[in-house]
């Protein structure tokens, strides 16, 4: 039996944010996550760090929270944020009377929204429809959700926070109306762990209702599926929003060399409903074309979906109309001491959500330490010496990229690269070198090539793994990294993930890519036949 003060359930932005916050306040905590870190909505969204402009009219309070948190995150998490700025664009299809309401609401929320001449806007973003009517600049930014969560995790680790990934909570033990312990199963080894604790925090996002049900209570969390498309081009340098009441498919977010278009909003049956119907993709293209007329000629890298954990209090609205605000439940009101749940919210305000929850939790524990998460950067900047060394062992532009991805681990990886005869570049599209891949693969949190992909961006670029997956699994086998599954299974799993992302967009250039993938991996390497012929 393990002992700790707080068990946190859920390894998304909120849960990890809470782990960091508690660890910085000196409260012992263990986090349980059923998948990998940020496997849910925290990595399955468009990666927009909201300025708040999107919520200004409908929920001015949420908009104010957004701009405040946006400012904080650009400071503490700058390795994860690309300060791309955003445009709000009034198109020929949007109601012009909304413009003034929106401008006033932004001012009220404290969001700077400066008008820009349409001609100047088109010079900056020449792929936009020339027939747009008005443009405003806002401090939107692109954020790498996955990386931000990981950097929070690194910070939490530094303060003693502990994380167990691939651990699914199976029971929450109670005694005399109090939470006593949390039991979880390691989904990879099948082992069970029991962690005794004083408090439990349910930050399971779309899975939060399932956790509440474990203690015999009920809550209104409605998973809401949002579909997104990643394109193989950075056809906009800025985040582009439609200047109208928030709707489907009206946000474009550039990330590195790609652009993400999102999202739809459909009620999902299950929190893990990540199925993307082709209709969603076609609908996004239809709507997106209003801003970018050439949209259909750009290659789609993948379509994917996440589920938003919308909180529905009794009788309130669902779907697009539901609040993006968050809600903290103290289950002592229902007769169970020692358990708090946090519902709803959005990525941009994860830190604030964690702060509010930890304030409540600490008051219950009698801890007086104040929140410091807004004051201290998630990771320290690499020293000039380490960067200088890195430039000799990483590809030119790759040193910076690796430093941003790796955070705390960067100096270790640089040392590893220096010790190698040659730090080969394994993923040319995203500039990921062997030292980084080996390091991440050796992390206990990595259980497959897919986990390595998520942390390093291996296989996320133009080739989508067609050329880099074989050499990566080869390299890892060569240097003795072993995963719970065989190299062939690993490769099949990796390719299968990519396949899933292309199936709902099977036409045009995507269809060519799919045929190429099958040509290499089935026709040439016979991975399909080998599946039945090789013994486990």
């Amino acid at each position, binding site marked *: 039996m393990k002992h700790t003060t707080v068990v946190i359930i859920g390894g998304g932005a909120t849960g990890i944010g809470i782990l960091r916050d508690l660890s910085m306040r000196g409260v012992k905590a263990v986090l349980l996550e059923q998948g990998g870190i940020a496997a849910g909505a925290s990595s399955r969204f468009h990666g927009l760090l909201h300025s708040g402009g999107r919520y200004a009219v409908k929920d001015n309070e949420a908009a104010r929270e957004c701009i405040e948190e946006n400012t904080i995150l650009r400071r503490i998490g700058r390795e994860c944020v690309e300060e791309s700025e955003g445009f709000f664009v009034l198109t020929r299809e949007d109601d012009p009377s909304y413009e003034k309401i929106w401008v006033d609401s932004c001012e009220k929320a404290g969001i700077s929204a400066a008008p820009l001449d349409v001609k100047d806007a088109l010079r900056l973003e020449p792929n936009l429809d020339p027939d747009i009517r008005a443009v405003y600049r806002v401090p939107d930014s692109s954020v790498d959700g996955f990386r931000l969560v990981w950097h929070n995790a690194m910070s939490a680790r530094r303060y003693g926070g502990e994380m167990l990934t691939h651990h699914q909570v199976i029971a929450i033990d109670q005694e005399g109306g109090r939470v006593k312990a949390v039991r979880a199963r390691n989904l990879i080894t099948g082992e069970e762990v029991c962690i005794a604790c004083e408090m439990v925090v349910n930050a399971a996002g779309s899975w939060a209702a399932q956790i509440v049900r474990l203690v015999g209570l009920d809550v209104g969390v409605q998973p809401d599926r949002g579909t997104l498309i990643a394109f193989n081009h950075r056809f906009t340098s800025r985040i582009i929003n439609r200047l109208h009441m928030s709707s489907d498919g009206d946000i474009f977010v550039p990330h590195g060399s790609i652009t993400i278009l999102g999202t739809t909003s459909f009620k999902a049956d299950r929190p893990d409903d990540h199925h993307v119907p082709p209709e969603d993709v076609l609908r996004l293209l239809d709507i997106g074309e209003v801003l970018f007329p050439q949209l259909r000629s750009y290659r789609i890298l993948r379509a994917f979906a996440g589920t938003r954990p919308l909180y529905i209090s009794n009788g309130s609205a669902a779907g697009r109309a539901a609040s993006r605000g968050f809600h903290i439940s103290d289950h002592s009101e229902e007769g169970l001491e020692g358990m708090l749940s946090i519902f709803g919210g959005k990525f941009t305000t994860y830190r604030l959500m964690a702060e509010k929850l930890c304030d409540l939790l600490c008051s219950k524990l009698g801890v007086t330490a104040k929140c410091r998460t807004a004051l201290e950067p998630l990771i320290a900047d690499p020293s000039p010496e380490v960067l200088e060394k890195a430039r000799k062992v990483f590809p030119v532009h790759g040193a910076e990229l690796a430093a941003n991805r790796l955070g705390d681990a960067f100096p270790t990886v640089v040392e590893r690269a220096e010790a190698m005869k040659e730090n080969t570049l*394994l993923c040319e599209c995203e500039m990921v070198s062997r030292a980084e891949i080996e390091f991440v693969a050796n992390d206990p949190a990595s259980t497959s090539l897919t986990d390595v992909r998520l942390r390093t961006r291996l296989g996320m670029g133009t080739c989508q793994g067609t050329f880099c997956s074989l*050499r990566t699994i*080869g390299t890892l*086998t060569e240097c003795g990294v072993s995963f719970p599954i065989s190299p062939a299974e690993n490769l099949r799993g990796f390719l299968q993930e990519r396949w899933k992302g292309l199936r709902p967009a*099977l036409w045009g250039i995507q*269809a060519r890519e799919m*045929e190429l993938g099958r*040509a290499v991996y089935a*026709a040439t390497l016979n991975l*399909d036949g080998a599946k039945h012929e090789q013994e486990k």
Partner: protein
Amino acid sequence: MNRKSDILVVGSGLAGMTAALTAAASGKSVTLLCYGAGSLSISSDCIDVLGYFGGERTKEPFTVMERLPEEHPYRKIGTQAVKTALEWFEKFCAGAGLDLHKPAEGEGNHELITVMGTTKPSWLCPDSHDAACIRDAKHIAVFTVENMKDVHPRLIIDQLKHYPFLADKDFQGFTLPCPIKDARRNITPLDIARYVDKPDGLRWLHENLEAFAGKFDVFLLPPICGMELAQNVWKKLSTELNVRIVEMISIPPAVSGLRLYDVLRKSLNQKGVYLAENVQILSADVEQGKCRALYSEEGQRWEADEFVIATGGLLSGGISTEPGKAWESIFHIPLNVPADIEAWSSPDIFGSSLFARMGVSVGGDLRPLDEGGAILLKNVRFAGRVLGGYDFALEKSGHGVALATGWLAGTLAGKE
């Protein structure tokens, strides 16, 4: 600008080049239009005819061929045509200095070994790829070259040992020092194969392998035994080192596919086929069910009496798609596909997918048919992946279909 020839072939993959060669044998003037390198640059010089049927490995392709579905190109042209095409090709290659062999009488498909450590069935292959010797071998050395990203002995050994018949073999992995300086980040088997064509390169390979001779029964190498001189290099090394050398099949750039490509190109030149590079055909001039000419990007008109279209499938651009729609790219022949996009593919990447079998429907003479079975174009034949009714990836039948249909299309066009 106008160019006129008796026969016009579009596409420089195995199907197109084969069609151009057989058409040229008729003595007629032949033009071959190329757009890109063709699929040999991503495959190999081994001719997979039919490695799998209904998910099971075939012992040899011809006995099961008759049981393929009716729309399969092999069924359309008949088993005999496939056999004749393969015989022709074997002879042709031997004459061009690239010996490809079918398995010995009574033996099943050849067994190839890939850099993924898998085995793959194939029908015709050069001696250097024939891995039959591995069955009787006890000690097997697996080689890579320093900084060759795509070839890793430990992976290959680990995977090969998952096959029951290889589980007990003594495998050992070795890395040869990289002979090419200043290109360390990007060494592919193609770089080394080109180097080995030179005297220095051959010496390098010989010297580095010599130390292992006598200790192993088989050497598994990346495909690095030369390009133009591959056959001689392989023979020389095998004899001098007295060891069975097997080249593994690798991912693109495909060394052995390019060897075959070079052989075919050379032959086309010798036969007087006019090759035009970088010509993309966009449309056709068709009158009363007869094609009069094709138009390329620059508005150039390519006239001919007979046409062979070997433009490939989705990957090469012979087939175009839009959401829920598919058509042949030059003549805009609609392909019968469901509007539901999800029905196009299997949820499993290696499952049976409709889009993989999508292509032009033809008669036994490879002329395109409409839905009622009537000939759409009297003087146009289709060959290779642009044809529907088969899945080259799962069946391991890509080169077999390309070769057989290319051979037939060229032969028939030559007879008109």
